């Protein structure tokens, strides 16, 4: 031990004159900008999807109803409540948040004598509600996929010359990747008219358990192969994933399941119908609503006969939707399953002509009217009477039936809905086959943002060479001296809806245009052909603004007659399917009730 070793330690006494490092007032010292303090939630952008609850490994989050937040499409109306007797401030909930509404402040002081006080719903009244500082995740969410897996499609130049299906469908690998993005919040289920168990069948895709997937599909939708292709997929508008990225391709995943299960296996999985009950139900119209009802009723053991005026079953699914969107074989397979349940479909049998309503009423326990909207509306502007002006639904029907339809070199379509796109694209294909080029002009009252058609329909139409003139109000079908159509005269629509979104058109007469074409196709709307009801029944029934009045369970005012589908509600396949289920359930209840009465 040297003296040096004894003395050296004393040299640090020099620090006695240093400025002390003590923080003067440490209580409430601001934490770093990124500090993970107490939670904040932007109530307006939160959608209550519960993904935060799902990821919390401490079960610290409850989803609770909050005053002033309503349950609506795409928002469950629930908000996260956090238990600070559980939280570990890992901020996984922030990272996984689908909308980015959940963040953290850098506030960290919370002292209380009551252990039950440490629960709160962020975004309501906490003092740090509006603090700017605090943890937010860097960029968009990374814990679940943002971008949709690309769907392979036939390129425009290939598809325009034929009616082959455009969309390829996902491969297994692609489907798994896409299904993987789903967070299973279930917000979509309420939006789907048929309330399909969307998260469950997406989980089945992820697990590669297609049998289970198919069974789930058939619980709520016997037209899954059709819907997997042409559904208006409103579910995707309430998908939690769309707030930061693309919504899950729910429709394509549904299709993928059906694609992966061979038809025979499908029949096996669906199984046999229940023992016959001896009851008979007549259904008028073999469209999605009628056939869905038929499927449900037949499965329950009731005898079902479907009356179809046209030569094939399927209704608008067959005669309205062109083959390139929905191949007939796909539709046939869905209908095949329904027929396998023992449903008898009498095609070419028009009620009112080949069989009367009275006869149906007499011979069957119940009758379901599912006639759809099969008559096209006309604008009835001057010049619409006479040759050269067609209605879209009529033309589509004729194309499906294989009839020869007139194909002019240039034509004009009026309308901005899916039917307008369907006819425009169908005619474009026919023109391509006949002339080698496309000459279709599409005009619509609505501006492009208000088109009722699906976005991809518009995009694909344009890709295929359809010229779209939006916000054009038709004034007259122009004809030459011989009466032959030469074009359509339109005015520009300055605005079409008022501030409340109600129809209030304003035209600019000064902006007039003539769209050339030797044919005008009107595709503005459809209506039901209720002539089959005949006068007495029409008088006997209650009506509601032009449609047969039904109650919540699809009963008409006549106890034996039920109505469903587009004719009473609207306006797409999945709604019709949903209606079909509901009306079938009512009919079954009624039949059971009658059983009890007797």
């Amino acid at each position, binding site marked *: 031990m040297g003296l040096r070793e004894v003395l050296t330690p004393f040299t640090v006494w020099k620090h006695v004159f240093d400025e*002390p*490092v*003590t*923080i003067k007032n*440490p*209580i*409430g*010292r601001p*934490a770093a900008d990124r500090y993970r303090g*107490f939670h904040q939630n932007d109530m307006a952008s939160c959608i209550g999807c519960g993904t935060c609850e799902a990821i919390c*490994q*401490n*079960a*610290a989050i409850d989803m609770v109803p909050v005053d002033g937040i309503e349950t609506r499409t795409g928002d469950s109306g629930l908000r996260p409540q956090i*238990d*600070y*007797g*559980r*939280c*570990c*401030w890992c901020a996984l909930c922030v990272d996984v948040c689908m909308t980015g509404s959940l963040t953290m402040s850098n506030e*960290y*002081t*919370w*002292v*209380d*004598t*009551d*252990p039950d006080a*440490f629960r709160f719903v962020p975004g309501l009244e906490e003092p740090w509600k509006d603090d700017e500082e605090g943890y937010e995740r860097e960029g968009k969410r990374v814990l679940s996929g943002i971008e949709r897996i690309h769907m392979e499609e036939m390129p425009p130049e290939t598809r325009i010359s034929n009616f082959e299906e455009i969309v390829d469908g996902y491969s297994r690998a692609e489907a798994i990747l896409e299904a993987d993005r789903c967070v299973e919040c279930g917000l979509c289920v309420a939006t789907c008219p048929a309330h399909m168990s969307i998260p469950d069948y997406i989980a089945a895709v992820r697990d590669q358990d297609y049998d289970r997937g198919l069974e789930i599909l058939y619980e709520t939708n016997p037209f899954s192969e059709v819907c997997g292709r042409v559904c208006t997929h409103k579910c995707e508008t309430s998908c939690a994933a769309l707030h930061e990225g693309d919504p899950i391709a729910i429709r394509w995943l549904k299709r993928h399941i059906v694609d992966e299960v061979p038809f025979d296996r499908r029949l096996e999985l669906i199984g046999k119908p229940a023992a016959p009950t001896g009851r008979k139900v007549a259904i008028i119209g073999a469209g999605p609503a009628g056939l869905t009802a038929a499927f449900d009723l037949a499965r329950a053991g009731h005898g079902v006969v479907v009356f179809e005026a046209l030569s094939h079953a399927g209704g608008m699914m067959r005669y309205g939707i062109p083959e390139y969107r929905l191949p007939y074989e796909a539709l046939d397979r869905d209908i095949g399953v329904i027929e396998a349940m023992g449903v008898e479909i009498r095609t070419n049998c028009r009620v009112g002509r080949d069989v009367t309503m009275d006869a149906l009423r007499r011979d069957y326990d119940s009758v379901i009217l599912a006639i759809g909207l099969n008559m096209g509306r006309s604008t009835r502007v001057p010049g619409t009477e006479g040759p050269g002006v067609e209605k879209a639904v009529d033309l589509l029907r004729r194309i499906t039936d294989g009839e020869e339809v007139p194909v002019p070199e240039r034509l004009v379509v009026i309308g901005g809905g899916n039917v307008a796109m369907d006819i425009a694209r169908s005619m474009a294909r026919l023109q391509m086959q006949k002339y080698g080029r496309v000459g279709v002009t599409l005009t619509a009252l609505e501006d492009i943002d208000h088109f009722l058609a699906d976005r991809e329909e518009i995009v694909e139409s344009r890709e295929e060479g359809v010229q779209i003139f939006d916000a054009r109000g038709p004034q007259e079908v122009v004809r030459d001296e011989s009466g032959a159509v030469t074009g359509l005269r339109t005015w520009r629509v300055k605005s079409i809806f008022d501030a409340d979104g109600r129809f209030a058109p304003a035209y600019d007469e000064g902006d007039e245009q003539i769209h050339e074409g030797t044919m005008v196709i009107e595709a503005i709307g459809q209506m039901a052909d209720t002539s089959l009801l005949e006068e007495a029944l029409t008088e006997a029934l209650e009506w509601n603004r032009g449609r047969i009045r039904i109650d919540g369970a699809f009963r008409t005012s006549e106890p034996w007659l039920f109505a469903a589908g587009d004719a009473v509600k609207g306006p797409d396949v999945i709604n019709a399917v949903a209606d079909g289920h509901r009306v079938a359930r009512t009919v079954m209840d009624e039949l059971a009730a009658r059983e009890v009465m007797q």
Partner: protein
Amino acid sequence: MKDVDDKFLKNIETEFPLREELRPRRVTTPDGQEIEIEPLKDYFCEAAPKVHPKAYIPIVEDFYNWARANSLWILGFGTGCGAIEMRPLMTPRFDAYRYGIQWRPTPRQANLLMISGYLSVKTLKRAIRAYEQMQGPKYVVGLGSCTINGGMYWDSYNTIKRLDQYLPVDLYIAGCMPRPEALLAGFMELKKLIKAGKGEGANKYAENFATYKANQKSVIKDWDMPDYNW
């Protein structure tokens, strides 16, 4: 409810007998005397804790409370992870000593027990002992989520979930773990409580002694200490 494989179920009486040194027995003292001893009774007082009455004159009680509030002596017992944020408080940067707060190495000198987060059953046993050995009036502060509702160990088989079932908690500080600044804020709040005469944890413990004991014994299966060790 879970299935239990009986093979592994242990009988508390036979599997966890009282440790040899705690059993009543005859011993020979160093000076040759033979005596009977019963350690659990001989070494500890059996009397249960009593409620500490308030001073008769309010102003005196107020004075007591003021004094108590300004000498929070913490037992240096890091029962869980939160203890690591107490070290900065003992050092110059945060310097809790200036607020009359200091750490003591033995329960006899301390009046504040900080339960710094989760408590395993094994530590709970020691914490109870430490608490009971402390002189009244004494206080308990729970740090972090774990003391409130189990925290991130909510599904653990070895940690208690609610501290207030086993010890009378005067105050909770939220966080996982709470920062030194939050701890200081907690101490200031505790001082206010004591000054207002609301730091009544020890009396609560005395009043509800039977309930606390029953709760403690329901999780500490091998109870091998006297019911109250002070």
